[in-house]
């Protein structure tokens, strides 16, 4: 197990280095940050000074090494746009993204499992067919379109829910939460649905197919033969066995929900990390872009690591295959 962990950590370092290198070599093509920092009629001499003070005149390898050297010590530099330490800005924006991701995941899992079960149990009926069709729409509509449609219907026409922002937030230590105020909770509804809809349809389709699979297995037939009620068979036995792959997928998807909330956050002006990243791209804010990409890499590495460990815990056969067989 320890050897496995060490191997994984070495791999993670490799991943980080690769992400850092690729990111940095791409940044050369996003434009000149100086133009985004000063106004158009700024004299040339002043631009030169700004360039030099940002260290942009050094050759690329020097810039990369300097960045990585500082990043190892936890210093991700200063944002060009906000002139604050990147780590502080990310820490301030993280709660917004994490709360949104949590709500979206809960929404996706809750409704996804429920609808998946319904459509599996009523297979062939009109209801199941409708659910199927709807899920296809959900999986193929782009996120920004869903967001804009929801805003159009629920904010503009019905005026039930806010179209942007987090509402009022309460500060608890370093964490700002929207869970404790009415406006904060209302503000969460539309972005959570937008962000979670894709995962919902994914979970729903997965649950449906797994459920159909499980319902055909022998132990379900035996359960029926024992005279168990439908409810006990479906929810006590079938659903439980359906959930194992669902949990795996949901775990992996949580990572992508956090990492790819960019579009949802932009549509809803949600003050989270994804929106910050998109603004950074527009403003050529290299320190924020680099830190965000590394953070996303970290999230994926961590989740994959946890999933791998869980696998070997849950399914001892995997352990035999790797460790004990030798």
């Amino acid at each position, binding site marked *: 197990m320890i050897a496995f962990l060490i191997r994984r950590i070495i791999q993670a370092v490799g991943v980080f280095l690769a992400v850092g290198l690729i990111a940095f070599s791409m940044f050369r093509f996003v*434009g*000149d940050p100086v*133009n985004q920092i000063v106004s*158009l*009629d700024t*004299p040339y001499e002043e631009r030169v000074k700004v360039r030099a003070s940002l260290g942009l005149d050094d050759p690329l390898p020097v810039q990369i090494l300097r960045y990585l050297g500082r990043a190892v010590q936890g210093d991700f530099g200063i944002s060009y746009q906000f*002139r604050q330490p990147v780590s502080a800005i990310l820490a301030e924006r993280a709660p917004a993204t994490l709360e949104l991701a949590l709500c979206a995941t809960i929404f996706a899992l809750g409704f996804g499992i429920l609808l998946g079960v319904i459509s599996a149990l009523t297979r062939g009926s009109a209801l199941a067919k409708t659910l199927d069709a709807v899920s296809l729409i959900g999986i193929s509509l782009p996120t920004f379109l869903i967001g804009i449609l929801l805003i159009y219907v629920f*904010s503009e026409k019905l005026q039930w829910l806010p179209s942007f*922002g987090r509402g009022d937030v309460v500060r608890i230590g370093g964490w700002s939460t929207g869970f404790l105020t009415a406006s904060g909770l209302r503000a969460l509804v539309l972005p959570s649905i937008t962000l979670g809809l894709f995962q919902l349809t994914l979970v729903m389709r997965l649950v449906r197919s797994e459920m159909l699979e499980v319902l055909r297995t022998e132990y379900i037939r035996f359960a029926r033969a024992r005279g168990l009620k439908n409810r006990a068979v479906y929810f006590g036995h079938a659903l439980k066995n359906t959930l194992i792959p669902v949990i795996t997928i949901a775990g992996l998807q949580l990572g992508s929900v956090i990492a790819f909330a960019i579009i949802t956050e*932009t549509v809803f002006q949600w003050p989270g990390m994804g929106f910050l990243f998109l603004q950074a791209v527009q403003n050529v804010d290299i320190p924020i872009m680099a830190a965000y990409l590394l953070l996303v890499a970290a999230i994926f590495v961590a989740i994959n690591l946890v999933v791998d460990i869980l696998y070997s815990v849950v399914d001892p056969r995997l352990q035999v295959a790797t460790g004990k067989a030798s």
Partner: protein
Amino acid sequence: MTLKGLTIKGAAFGLAAMLAVLAQPASAVTLRYANQGDLKSLDPYTLNETTTIAHHGHVFEGLTKRDKNLSIIPGLAERWELVEPTRWRFHLRRNVKFSDGTPFNADDVIFSAERVRAPGSNFATRVPADVKVEKVDDYTVDFVTPQPNPILFYQWDSWYIMSKSWAEKNNSVAPTPAAATTPTFASLNAMGTGPYTIESHQPGVKTVFKRNPSYWGKIDGNIDEIVFTPIANDSTRVSALLSGEVDVIEPVPLQDINRVNASQNATVLTGPEVRVIFLGMDQVRDELLNSNVKGKNPFKDKRVREAFFKAIDVEVIKSRVMRNLSSPTAIMVGREFFDLAKDFTREKPDPEAAKKLLAEAGYPNGFEVGMNCPSDRYVNDGDICRAVIGMLARVGVKVNPIIEPKAQYFAKVLKSGGYNTSFYLLGWTVGSGDSHNVLYEIMGCRNDPKTSRGDTNLGGYCNPKLDALTDKVLVETDKAKRDQMIKEAFQIGIDDYGYIPIHQQPLVWGTSKKVKLPQRADNQVRLEWATKE
């Protein structure tokens, strides 16, 4: 148990809500405002950019101000006079206090004059380095210029006066440079003499302004609290206005104007902006970029430039691209800033003549050239370029479009990118509110490396006669004579076909029907003039 807990919590919430209602004075009017851009720094000398300057104008004031029609009016200075040709005397307003209670006097002006031209300031041109600032008494300050300067104070409406004692106390004597590596106190806090104070500021998220109870002047509006949120996404910003979540937005995308006007609770304010959109042509390189003409530069031939001018129909751009909201122009400065602008009429487009001119110049079958164009900087900028490309195709010129986001575009075309363009679209506002700025920056020769003349003349158009006039314009104090010289200079540019002015782009703001707000042509959204029912 849980139920009980909930009830208690509910009661507490209810009580808190009641208290909040009670605590609010009945008359407090809150205006919520969303802009596509951020307020990145509260230091008034960090970023010379319209939206930022407008925000700061709620908190700070200059010695002069500009009114709703952009005329210069007294601000912190009651009046000013030219005591000698090179000495401007400013008489300061008495009984003005900063919002922290300290009185305003000549020391603050002298301090601000030093701070605004210190290294790191983005407003260094406001008070040129060779101007001496002398304190005559506590309420009189002299500005001594090395040569007569009639427009010294034209831009002082955005040279905001800061408190000397506040800056010294808060370690903010030096201006926060745009590229500062640590946030300074002044970049996160602001304290001035203006009609509002900053209640809270979360960069990129939300800024709240509160009415300054000790403000010396009267304001036209009735807004007690301004809540500013940046909303970058166009459709979200419009939705926020239509749903009533915000009262004022800037800008409204052109395609959403009808939608906003059709709604029950919002309306669109439009007008010409002082910004002029124009096309520039590379007249310096020996060979154009992205061109099939080798060994020579067609744009060095005036006939080719004239052909380009005649091929482009600005009225079609107005009706097809700008939804009839732009105002085509013949000169390179906004008409609001030049009294004789009305004397100029734009030459009619004439594609046939354009073809003939190209043939005379030796390009009977046209030629190829690349065109650089931003896609997210000006109103419908990318579409204007596409229209221009189509019009030029009709006279046989094949334009290869290079339409990019502003970050990439500006990285190439500006001096710092080596003027890497042969044909481009750019917009320019004379920051000083005076034609000299565009004559010097955009239309001046850029061949003298010792001066900054022509730094933003990306195509390198050059006529020494125009430069000579520009220099005379700078020091001429007689307004009528000066205007004639400016007119002459613009005429030289027109006769040379040095640039192709297209239009003054439209300003498009969205407001709730409950809000009355004057629209200033420099696109500064000034909410001290707003009233809300």
